[in-house]
């Protein structure tokens, strides 16, 4: 392979031009900040013949944020998002998540769309061409087995590590999708299909670490939107071995409402564990009473059932799953007491 394979680079100025460019070459890739894509190109993981720079399309560059609604264009940078005063004020979980992504230079380049669609990661995948070839490749590229779970029968367990997804899942966000068949809107949660179930085949709606987004050919995320809920409190926290230039070991977003001394609403989402960001199901059952040991025990059970951290990172999966629960518990307590 070449250090950087040849590719064409185009700079569309409108959404229509962008869609046309996508349709013109099915193997094309969108280029936001390139902080993830270019690394993967250099490692020979992907070799798109056409890169489409999305940063010149004005329709994708706006942040609209007030007390009622939030709308973020896909090419807004993570730095812009983290520093936006109304996002910080009304949607702290989003600003906090954005501010903790990688390092400052990555945030200056990296985009919201790129982070939401961040490729899943694995220690057997994010390696050089030479390394992967010496290891017989893997399911996520051209190989036939998953080195994380060699008996996985065709299921890839590469881990989703974007920080913005859990924050926006906790806000019940929707995404706008653009594509050749026209725009459509759907819940952000439906974008992520990395269920990686070993007991069922990978399909268009239930994928794994390799097929982890539900986008159709030529489609891309153009914006993400959320409605605010009165009195909603939210926050994001994560564990990382060092505090910059690092993917999350595990990240947790919590949003909750308190009604008197009762927990009225609870939403929790995780990253860095499964092949998809996981919005924890079943938290409604924990609401209605005080924030006590019963709630935390229930939380632990939900985390145990739904958070599946495999040996996809250098840090053991067991640890990632356990501290995911710890962070969630702490954020709940902090927000409830705030």
């Amino acid at each position, binding site marked *: 392979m070449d250090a950087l394979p040849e590719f064409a680079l185009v700079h569309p100025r409108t959404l229509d031009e962008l869609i046309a460019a996508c349709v013109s070459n099915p193997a094309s890739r969108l280029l936001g900040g390139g902080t993830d894509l270019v690394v993967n190109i250099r490692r020979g993981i992907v070799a798109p013949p056409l890169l489409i720079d999305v940063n010149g399309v004005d329709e994708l560059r706006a942040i609209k944020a007030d007390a009622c609604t939030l709308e973020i264009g896909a090419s807004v940078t993570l730095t812009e998002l983290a520093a936006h005063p109304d996002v910080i004020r009304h949607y702290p979980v989003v600003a906090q998540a954005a501010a903790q992504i990688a390092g400052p230079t990555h945030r200056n380049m990296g985009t919201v769309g790129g982070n939401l669609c961040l490729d899943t990661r694995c220690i057997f995948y994010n390696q050089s061409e030479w390394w992967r070839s010496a290891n017989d490749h893997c399911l996520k590229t051209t190989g036939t087995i998953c080195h994380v779970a060699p008996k996985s029968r065709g299921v890839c367990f590469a881990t989703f590590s974007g920080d913005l997804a859990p924050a926006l899942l906790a806000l019940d966000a929707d995404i706008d999708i653009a594509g050749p068949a026209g725009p459509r809107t759907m819940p952000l949660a439906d974008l992520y299909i990395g269920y990686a179930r070993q007991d069922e085949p990978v399909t268009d709606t239930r994928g794994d670490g390799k097929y982890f987004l539900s986008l159709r050919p030529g489609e891309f995320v153009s914006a993400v939107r959320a409605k605010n809920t009165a009195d909603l409190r939210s926050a994001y926290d994560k564990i990382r*071995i060092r505090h910059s230039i690092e993917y999350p070991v595990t990240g947790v977003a919590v949003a909750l409402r308190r009604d008197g001394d009762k927990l009225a609403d609870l939403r929790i989402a995780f990253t860095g564990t499964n092949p998809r960001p996981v919005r924890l199901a079943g938290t409604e059952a924990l609401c209605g009473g005080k924030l006590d040991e019963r709630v935390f025990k229930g939380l632990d059970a939900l985390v145990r059932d739904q958070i599946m951290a495999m040996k996809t990172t250098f*840090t053991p999966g067991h*640890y990632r799953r356990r*501290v995911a629960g710890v962070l969630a518990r*702490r954020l709940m307590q902090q927000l409830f007491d705030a």
Partner: protein
Amino acid sequence: MKYIAAVSAIATAAPAAPDPTHATVKIKLDFDGSIVVLSGAADIGQGSTTILAQSVAEVLGLDLARIRVVTGDSEVVPKDNGSYSSRVTFMVGNAAIDAANNLKALLIAAAARKLEAKPGEIECLGELYRAGAQDKGLTFNEVVTEALKDTGTITVTGNYSTIPQSHGGKKYRGSAIGGTMGYSYSAQVVEVSVDEETGVVTVDKVWVAHDCGRALNRLTVEGQVQGSVWMGMGQAMSEETGFHNGLMLTANMLDYRVPTIQDSPPIEVGIVESMDPHGPFGAKEAGEGSLAAFLPALTNAIADATGLRFNDLPVTPDRVFALLEKRAREVGCKRNGS
């Protein structure tokens, strides 16, 4: 949230191995009075070029502005063993002093010729060479003109060889690596917080006292000692090699986690000066002595905080968590009477 703060101190001596190979420095003096120091010692940010310029300026009594140092280009400079093992200030510094003394002897001889005096009567004041306090003497440039009269451009050589030492009955001059002769000492105090629920260790502050012999440049000594602490932090807390079927898993700057400035605690550097009889102007080293002390100081501090002893490095959060869990299980077993 449970945090425990603790303090621990440790003192270490830097490893040292005298070496038979020596350093060579050349100095070129040209008609315009320009002095160029030629050395193979690469300045890798530690400030060795500054130290060489300072050493030559000190011997010749000249302002630093008169000295230019050229390093690294092996077509021009004499061979050097390299910037490692805390050897450059000690060995190359001594060679630079030797070269400067050789140049000074030529200049004094030239001044003596011109002033019709004996070399022993010549007083070198840097910019002025004179034969006794009543003599109006010669400027540096006049001396240079006289010195170059018959030969043109002058190049002198300076060398340094380590001192043979008795070691186990044999004359010992170190191994082939040409390690430092600067036997420095370092004491370090590390204050940590240990999060007992996540295993995250935070270094709150580090105090270092480093005996570098005479501090030739206090600014670079302080910078070097801070760098040693960061290097020690990497070894102790985050940098790790791991292999899968003989393939290194962490062979990149993302997964091999060198600490960033975000991970740096406040570091208080205390310079303890002493006089090394063989060191350049009494200096020893400030390259690595304080690296070694960080590791035991950190693990002692963690032991003070938690009672846990770590025999595996780095002390990553998952390792701390695993040991905390193991202890909790053992305590639980005892409580249950089993």
